[in-house]
């Protein structure tokens, strides 16, 4: 039991904890979207995938009693959605943004429908890794209860960066995303590369959903994502299609979610709507500072969103 109050130290602690707790879904979805967009397709439907992942992880964890099976189920749900999106969005004269919006509605609808019986029961949660044993303060111990999924996400970010920069497969994806004609001349199947990228990206987004329902906040409800999937898609642009920067951006947004409640708990009572809007204000500011009238966004795949 916490017997001493942390006072103002609670704010940075809450933000740090929020980064690790709340940032995980952002991290997975933005990494998934980064992979997808590098191949030249946009998948807005990851919001639906995130919800579906959260629902299936919770349901499977509840039914089987094993949270890790839930995580796998969430990934598989993501794969199915990825297959649908990857196939549909590559049909002639089909717009991937429109398909993505349809997939948001489809995914959330299916998740709400199948998830009805799982709102009430409590499913077993993922075990956390406690890095705070050195501290005698319960708040610190609680803040350092880190989800293995978070560590996984942090490991995937540099790995994906290396994959894009230094491997042959990474080169194929970048080629398909930047210049599909060149890729075709190289003998690479555009359809297959994009399909695999979309499916892998959706898989990651599904895992992100598992983090929502099996770690933090740790339940299935229809409002559990409240737009985080869409926000993570936007994060990719903010991160200039760089996996390492996706990591920083996700941490930033995760931490910002904790700002409003943490400030209220130390007695800053006014303007919590404003603090809740802090991540968006920050995004706008960074976009304004980093934009330049002389060039387009650096790092954008050349064929992104075009009909090739």
């Amino acid at each position, binding site marked *: *039991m916490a017997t001493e109050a942390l006072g103002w130290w609670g704010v940075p602690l809450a933000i740090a904890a929020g980064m690790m707790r709340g940032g995980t879904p952002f991290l997975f979805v933005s990494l998934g979207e980064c992979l997808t967009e590098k191949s030249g397709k946009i998948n807005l439907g990851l919001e639906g995938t995130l919800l579906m992942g959260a629902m299936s992880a919770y349901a499977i964890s509840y039914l089987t009693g094993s949270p890790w099976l839930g995580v796998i189920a969430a990934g598989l749900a993501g794969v199915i959605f990825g297959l649908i999106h990857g196939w549909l969005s590559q049909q002639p004269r089909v717009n991937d943004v429109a398909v993505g919006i349809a997939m948001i509605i489809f995914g959330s609808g299916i998740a*709400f429908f199948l998830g009805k019986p799982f709102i*009430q029961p409590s499913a077993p949660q993922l075990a956390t890794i406690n890095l705070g044993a050195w501290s005698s303060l319960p708040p610190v111990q609680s803040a350092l209860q880190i989800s293995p999924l978070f560590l996984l996400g942090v490991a995937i970010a540099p790995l994906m960066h290396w994959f894009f920069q230094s491997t042959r497969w990474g080169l194929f994806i970048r080629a398909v995303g930047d210049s599909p004609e060149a890729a075709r001349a190289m003998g690479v199947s555009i359809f297959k590369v994009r399909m695999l990228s979309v499916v892998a990206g959706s898989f990651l987004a599904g895992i992100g959903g598992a983090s929502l329902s099996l770690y933090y906040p740790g339940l299935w*409800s229809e409002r559990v994502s409240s737009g985080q999937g869409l926000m993570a898609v936007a994060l990719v642009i903010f991160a200039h299609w760089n996996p390492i920067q996706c990591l920083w951006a996700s941490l930033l947004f995760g931490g910002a979610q904790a700002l409003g409640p943490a400030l*209220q708990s130390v007695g800053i009572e006014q303007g919590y709507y404003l603090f809740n809007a802090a991540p968006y204000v920050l995004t706008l500011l960074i976009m304004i500072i980093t934009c330049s009238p002389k060039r387009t966004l650096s790092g954008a795949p050349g064929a992104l969103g075009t009909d090739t």
Partner: protein
Amino acid sequence: MSNRKLLHLSRRQVIRGLLATTAFGITARFGTGCSSAEGGGGATDQVTMGFIYVGPKDDYGYNQAHAEGAAGVVESFDWVKIVEEASVPETTAVEESMRSMIDIDGATVLFPTSFGYFDPHILKLAEEYPDVQFFHCGGLYQEGTHPVNVASYFGYIDEAQYIAGIVAAHTSKTGKLGFIGAKPIPQVLRNINSFTLGARSVKPEVTTQAIFTGDWALPVKEAEAANSMADQGIDVLTCHVDSPKVVMETAEKRGIFSSGYHADQTALAPKGYLTGAEWDWTSVYSKIAEDIHAGKNLMDGSIPHILRGGLAEGFWKLSEYGPAVSEQAKQDAEAAKAAFMDGSMVIYNGEIKDNTGAVVVEASQSLKQQDPVLEQMNYLVEGVIGSVAS
């Protein structure tokens, strides 16, 4: 190219299809119109009640409490038919839901339960359908300004929060309680204030930290708020959000106590759950159903427009006490409960100051629960750390 061939439809086929759909639509419409007119011959024989919830029906919270109430009515009377729709947002979507309940399902009594449904949605539909009666859960109805077929019902659940406050003050070791509210509206403020007054009635030095998340269902924000409060040494948490599940589970994870709201949440926090303020809508809905069955209605005033009640009227109940509640706490809580039952307890008994030091209830005043002044509450009493400004 082959795809296009497959999907190619001639103009004639398209027109035929459109005509068929329209014809089907019209006949289906006539069909339901006729059947409800036939069935409506003896209007008081069958009562169709429509319930609209803002979230899912089993959320351990506000909506579950209402859905249990609705299910209770169907069980008690065989002449009641209910139509329900869950997860309807507080937008024009609720108008469509109400319209289809009235036009297609033949509902004559509607219970749109969420606070934000009232203005402008219920008001608009009430003007359009003057024969349908709208009962809104909340305190927004005002005599004279709003249509005559609208009523508001709400319970003095802050009585239960007062008792929860007594239990919380007895159990807390740090003397710091936490309250997670959605928005600083009168009902939420009244719960926070009554909870605090109850706590301070047994231990005057106890404080309540209030945090507003900004909306009715924001699981991540609620978890963050609960964690932040635990970091600040708060050891009893309660809340007024649509689904208290996150708050209760987070409190249990952090090893602190919790006090429930809306429905029974004992199962979510077996160790730390103290007690909880639960709605008892079955008795309220049954009463309204019986009145309507007997031919009474809002339009001629035979059903009052403002339905209110506390423990004595069966609007709320307390959860079973948890394992951490001491004998002393139980005694004090039961004493307060008995006083609410016989009507001798007045929570807002002057002099009460707000947390800026201004007097909000004069020493000479004693505001009974029914006092409409309390429904316009816009302050937090002394002992609450927080502010009503957004």
